[in-house]
């Protein structure tokens, strides 16, 4: 979606303000919101692309004024409610008012480190061949899906060069809507700054994105 998360190339947000000696968390509740989000991944049964969509799928006015963990927490609430695991009246009461729904698994303290160490690899087996090779010129397609996509607006319609064939990876555009992993070939595609930002742009800048095959179309070689 062309939502508030798609920030690349926007103006007006002001300078970057690094905080000296920044703590990992800025408040007690941030720690809990972070840990709850990680811990609920297992019983909640959602995937990372669904979490991302839940975070970005809100009004820009709201997204741009919320802090980072406020956005995480709002997405967690939305996903819990969507799946009927928790209801508004329960959050208001601060107590469970209904028996739990059966869930596949709960994260036990003993499993935490194992689960973190394993992570969630997104590479999948395939016997297909990638359509593009390093050095190929490609154009990022003009697409504007209202659902989750990882092709930023600022590269759409622009010409780039395939830098690297990364592998065969879960396709977020499908995975986010619950349409399955639908894995696709994934590439690193590099664009010159001038191609993206116009002839006034800095000639020494290049920008690389990771792009799945359905985002790309072949372009004529130079």
């Amino acid at each position, binding site marked *: 979606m062309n939502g508030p998360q798609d920030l690349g190339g926007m103006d007006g947000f002001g300078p970057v303000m690094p*905080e000296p000696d920044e703590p*990992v968390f800025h408040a007690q509740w941030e720690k809990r919101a972070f840990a709850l989000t990680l*811990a609920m991944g297992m019983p909640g049964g959602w995937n990372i692309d669904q979490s991302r969509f839940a975070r970005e799928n809100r009004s820009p006015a709201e997204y*741009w004024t919320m802090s980072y963990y406020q956005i995480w927490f709002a997405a967690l609430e939305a996903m819990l409610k969507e799946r009927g695991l928790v209801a508004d009246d329960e959050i208001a009461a601060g107590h469970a008012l209904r028996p739990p729904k059966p869930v596949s698994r709960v994260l036990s*303290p003993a499993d935490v480190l194992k689960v973190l160490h394993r992570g969630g*690899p997104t590479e999948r087996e395939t016997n297909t061949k990638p359509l593009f090779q390093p050095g190929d010129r490609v154009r990022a397609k003009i697409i504007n899906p209202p659902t989750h996509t990882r092709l930023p607006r600022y590269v759409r319609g622009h010409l780039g060069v395939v830098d690297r064939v990364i592998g065969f990876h879960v396709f977020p555009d499908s995975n986010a809507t619950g349409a399955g992993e639908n894995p696709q070939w*994934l590439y690193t595609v590099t664009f010159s700054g001038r191609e993206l930002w116009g002839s006034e742009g800095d000639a020494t800048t290049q920008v*690389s994105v990771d792009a*799945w095959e359905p985002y790309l179309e072949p372009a004529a070689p130079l």
Partner: protein
Amino acid sequence: MTELHEHHHDHSELSETQLRVRALETVLTEKGYVDPAALDLLIETYEKKVGPRNGARVVARSWVDPDYRARLFKDATPAIAELGYAGRQGEHIVALENTPKLHNMVVCTLCSCYPWPVLGLPPVWYKSAPYRSRAVADPRAVLKDFGVTLPPDTQIRVWDSTSEIRYLVVPMRPAGTEGWSEERLASLVTRDSMIGTGLPKSPRDVK
């Protein structure tokens, strides 16, 4: 610009969120979906154990051990796992080599992707709208916000983390560190130098 800006989101909002987070945690615990001890362990892990010191060890090793360096740039995920770092938000890591001609910089314009196993959780600025909006369009100006000025002919390559690939910048080894131990070298490697918004400390900065 903001002296008249009255539309602020004051601290009452924070305490509201705080109460709401606590309420949700209670409900989820009562329903048996989460174990509070697991939450404590998750927090402790990312607050105390996993952080940029991990990445600094990787970089320092690559500075002293050419074989390791070659493995790191060929396939970073197993090379980093040799030092015991792996897992969540680092399932597929790519190491980016800074050279006198090329400076790499990492951003996630769409959310906040960041190589957790080597750098820990990202700082607020990395996740902020100013960084996410400007890093791809005007990286030199962003570098200036960090006090970094590169030669005008250095190529800057920005990596927008749009997939599950995570990027680790390997900065150039500072001059004047010949013969230093890996451990001592690691003390020069800052978090920002591994994101590309900073450079390593100079030997003068550490005694």
